């Protein structure tokens, strides 16, 4: 059970600690004033990684081996040099730069692969490191895949990889989700890739492309660690679930107050239990009726409970990004942070929520550490 929460924000990385039952408090901040895109806690060796987006000065990566007491700047991925005169354009004719814009996902390899990290980036890059982030290598098979050029921006101007799932049964099987560009899986640690979007639907796309892999905009994808044939995706178009190892997806419909949202987390052992933070769809992107709620299913999506105890139930316009909902390893503690700088924590699987903060900078991501 984790007693520490790391909150990545537009203006720094904040650390909160549990003081006692139902009592959490902010206790530290790292990189104050800097844009921290996301953070990884590598449970294999305890290392923390913080991805910074300095804007003018580029994306950087820092590592701490002493839980934040000291940090060291480490390597960042490099995109290949484009052929002379090559100008790459996306599906809509907009230029896609061949350079690192931002980290959008960090994931550890398996326990049998110490030091192996995966990184998903904007624009549409997947990289691995075999030395805990000191050096990085691009997965060129994915970058050179012709279908990769059909990806489009979704969530950012350029397409990006925001979810990486390393199969707990076979660490060579790695799945990625792309906004916007579908779900892709390699069975051989990046040598070959196939689309895995059967059953997904994108009703915002032109009729001919509603079911095309590249039209799918999964906002966030998770695989149940204890039952890895079950996957959940919070998609731009709604909620999708797979019970056949991402070979096919079933759309979950009629979810109140909204089937739209960005994040999803799944219980570490119970594949039927997952949490979402619903919002009004793309027209507005705010909570329905100004009420912040969390949706929880415990029966594989047949029914949902809308959890609200302790959350603001009026005049609240907090949006929760795809990496800003976290679950600890027990499946009991949850936390989420919003674009308006609020952070809430639950110690009972979402039944009750306590307010950790209301005035932080916009929250990009939260993790338990």
């Amino acid at each position: 059970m984790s007693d520490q929460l790391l909150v990545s924000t537009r203006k720094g990385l904040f650390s909160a600690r549990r003081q006692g039952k139902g009592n959490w408090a902010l206790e530290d901040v790292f990189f104050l004033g800097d844009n921290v895109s996301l953070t990884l806690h590598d449970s294999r060796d305890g290392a923390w990684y913080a991805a910074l987006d300095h804007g003018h000065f580029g994306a950087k990566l820092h590592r701490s081996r002493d839980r934040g007491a000291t940090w060291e700047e480490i390597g960042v991925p490099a995109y290949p040099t484009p052929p002379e005169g090559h100008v790459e354009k996306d599906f809509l004719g907009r230029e896609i730069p061949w350079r690192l814009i931002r980290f959008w996902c960090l994931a550890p390899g398996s326990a049998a692969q110490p030091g192996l990290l995966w990184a998903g980036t904007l624009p549409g890059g997947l990289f691995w490191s075999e030395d805990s982030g000191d050096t990085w290598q691009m997965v060129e098979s994915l970058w050179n895949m012709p279908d990769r050029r059909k990806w489009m921006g979704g969530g950012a101007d350029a397409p990006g990889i925001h979810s990486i799932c390393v199969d707990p049964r076979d660490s060579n099987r790695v799945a990625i989700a792309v906004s916007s560009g579908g779900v892709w899986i390699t069975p051989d640690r990046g040598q070959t890739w196939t689309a895995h979007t059967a059953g997904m639907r994108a009703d915002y796309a032109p009729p001919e492309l509603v079911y095309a892999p590249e039209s799918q905009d999964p906002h966030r994808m998770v695989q149940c660690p204890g039952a890895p044939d079950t996957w959940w995706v919070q998609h731009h178009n709604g909620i999708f679930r797979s019970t056949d190892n991402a070979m096919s997806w079933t759309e979950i419909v009629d979810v109140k107050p909204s089937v739209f949202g960005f994040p999803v987390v799944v219980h570490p052992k119970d594949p039927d239990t997952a949490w979402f933070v619903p919002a009004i769809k793309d027209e507005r992107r705010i909570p329905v009726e100004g009420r912040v709620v969390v949706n929880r299913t415990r029966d594989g999506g047949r029914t949902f409970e809308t959890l609200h105890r302790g959350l603001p139930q009026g005049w609240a316009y907090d949006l929760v990004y795809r990496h800003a909902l976290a679950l600890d390893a027990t499946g009991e503690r949850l936390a989420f942070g919003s674009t308006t700088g609020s952070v809430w924590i639950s110690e009972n699987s979402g039944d009750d929520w306590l307010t950790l903060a209301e005035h932080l900078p916009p929250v990009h991501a939260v993790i338990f550490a």
Partner: protein
Amino acid sequence: MPRVAFTRNLQRHVACPPCAVTGATVRESLEGVFTLYPKLRGYVLDEHGALRFHMAVFVDGVPVTDRRELSDAVPEASEIFVMQALSGG
């Protein structure tokens, strides 16, 4: 010998005190600084060696014209100043 100085905003993130280097072009001069402070390179240049989109380099008060190859000439005793472009307001 050109002198190179950096915006204070950059010094907050990475070591880059003013220094004198040898170099006939902006590229050669900056490479001289990067030899002294290797971490600095990634803050000023992208992975292909071009000036980052939101960075600016001035030689004696004049912005460089070749942002990709950094081939602008640097006369002896020039002052090179590296700063962030004020994009975004």
